[in-house]
Structure formats: structure tokens, C-alpha cells
């Protein structure tokens, strides 16, 4: 028996918040915002034909992550140097330093942070799983033609080109 095609395609990986993971999925006619605790999932659907606009604003996510990784790296680096000076082999602090430096570089590569909001006729909803500007650009570029196609009947008809001016009759 042939397997049924999955109705949803993943747009973003799960982004964790305090006690849940959020991800964004695309179906044929709607977006699905999934909020999961690991034990249950909640779904919010946004029909493509109802999307009026997207807002994209900047966020401090990159700065906060950079500061966090830098703090961890600085502390573990100091402990590592201290252990070296004492003649010990700083295994754990070296591991923490490597992790922090990797995190710092990774965070830099992900690019600046952003928040994306979707506007419909009844609400303005943040899409919490889109948190980096580069990824937001990719996702919105993918969604734009789909939304425009879903709203084709709403788009104003193209203005027909003006007919060429008639040649004036030759003067006798």
C-alpha cells in the first residue's frame, strides 16, 4: 500500500522557549504554527488567503546569545588558564571553552535576529519560530508567491495598456 504524502512541509526547525518548542509548517492552503511541550501539541492555522501582511522587526537575539556565549567562554577560559598555570590538565574547562567558542561562531553565522508577525483580518500574530533575519527572508520569499496565488481573485485586475493613438487623417 502506497504511503500517503504528508500534508505538512516543515518551514522552520523547532525553536525552544521556556517550556515549549515552536515550529512552522506549510500545507497546501494554510500555515500551521505548532507549539509542543513534548507531551502535547497545540495548533494554530493561518489560511494563506487570509494573510494581509507580514511585519518584520529587529530583535536583540544575536546580541544576547553572543553575550551569553562570551560570558561562558570567558569564565571557562580563565579557569583553564588558571589550571594551566597550576600545572594541571584542564579537561572540563577546555571542553566548556570549546563549546562556548563554537556557540559564539555559530551565533555569528546565523546572522541578526528578527521577529516576524503575520497580519490577518482579526489578529496580528507573531511567528515565534522565525528568529533570524536571513531565514525569515528565505521563508517569506517562499511564501510570497503562494500567498499571492491564493489571493489571486482578490488582486485588482491589471490595467490594460492604453490603445495606440489613432493616426490622424491625412490632411487634404
Amino acid at each position: 500500500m502506497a504511503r500517503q504524502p504528508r500534508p505538512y512541509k516543515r518551514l522552520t526547525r523547532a525553536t525552544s522557549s521556556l517550556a515549549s518548542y515552536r515550529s512552522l509548517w506549510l500545507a497546501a492552503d494554510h500555515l500551521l504554527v505548532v507549539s509542543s511541550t513534548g507531551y502535547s501539541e497545540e495548533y494554530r492555522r493561518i489560511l494563506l488567503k487570509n494573510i494581509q501582511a507580514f511585519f518584520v522587526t529587529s530583535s536583540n537575539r544575536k546580541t544576547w546569545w553572543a553575550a551569553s556565549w562570551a560570558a561562558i567562554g570567558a569564565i571557562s577560559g580563565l579557569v583553564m588558564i588558571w589550571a594551566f598555570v597550576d600545572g594541571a590538565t584542564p579537561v572540563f574547562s577546555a571542553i566548556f571553552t570549546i563549546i562556548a567558542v563554537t556557540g559564539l561562531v555559530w551565533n555569528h553565522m546565523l546572522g541578526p535576529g528578527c521577529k516576524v508577525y503575520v497580519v490577518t483580518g482579526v489578529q496580528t500574530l507573531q511567528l515565534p519560530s522565525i528568529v533570524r533575519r536571513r531565514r525569515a527572508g528565505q521563508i517569506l520569499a517562499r511564501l510570497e508567491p503562494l500567498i499571492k496565488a491564493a489571493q489571486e481573485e482578490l488582486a485588482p485586475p491589471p490595467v490594460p495598456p492604453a490603445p495606440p493613438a489613432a493616426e490622424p487623417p491625412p490632411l487634404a
Partner: protein
Amino acid sequence: MTAGPALPCPKCRSALGEQSWHGTERGRCSSCGTDYEFIPFPALTASRPRAVPKSVLMAEHATCFYHAENQAEAVCESCGRFVCAICAVDFGGRRVCPPCIMAAKDKDTNAVSSRTLYGGIALTFAILPILFWPVTLLTSPAALGFVIYGWRKPGSLVGGGRARLVIAGLAAALQIVAWGLLFVRLITEE
């Protein structure tokens, strides 16, 4: 240029005011100073046709099941009841009445609002208590119970399948077997 409605600032919720939305725009909220990029779509400025019911004028007119004063204009594709323009809702490519949408909430994938992930629950009961292994005497049967109970329940809408249930079931079964062997050994030693 097309005039659009006054939208709220996504950050401070104060009205950005009616603007001329045209293509991708940038702007700044005058209240909170947030810079934003704006990507509008035709739905922002288009006016949708409103469902206006027709009143019953003649006794022969079929009436809406839910509004006796309105003419029936459609048949619910789920329950077959005659419904008026207000009650005929486009839902997942079908025209159905609101009670049928409510009834479909737990079954129809286009309407379900939440799902319990029995795989996640079973896996937690099967794996986490290993850290405090004596409690697995209680938690492993519970994990197996969740596996059996959740096997035929609908899972996540976005995938995952039954892999967690299988892993949890195997882990729980192993723990139960281990406990069984331990009890057998204790009894035979006595």
C-alpha cells in the same frame, strides 16, 4: 498606490494609521520608534463579499435549519441540512454548517486544535526513571500502559509516527523482564 486599513504596530499595538501600502515598505512606529519592514498582500486592501442572507418571502421557500426567517441557499455537505448564506461556511474545500465544524474538531485534521503525544509521555515514563531505578517497578508498567493506550490514538499532525511508542514499549518491556528475573532469582535463592 492603494489605501489600506490602520494596522496596529506589532510591538506596542498602537495604530500605525491609514497608509498607502505599495510593495515592500519600511517604516517606523511613531509611538515606540520600532523600525519595521512591511510586506502587504492583496487581502489587505481587498473588500470581501459579505454573506447576506435572503429573507423568506413565500411559504414555498425552503428555510435555513438554524434561521427560520432566512431562505436556504445551500446544503451542508456533512449533515445534509438546508442552511442560509450565513451558516454555509467554506471549510477545507467543503460547504458545511457551524455545528458540523464543531463536531469535526477532534477528527478532521483541518480543525483539530491540539493532540496528546502519548509517545512522549510513554518515553518519559520508560527512560527518565532509570536514573532512580527502584521506581521503574511502577513506572515501566505505566509506560507500557501508555504505549498500549496511545497505539491507536491519532498522533502529531506534523509527523513523528510511532517511533517513540516503539522505543518506549521496548524499554518498558526490558525493565519488566529485568524485574521479573530479579524476583525469580530472589525467590529461588530463598
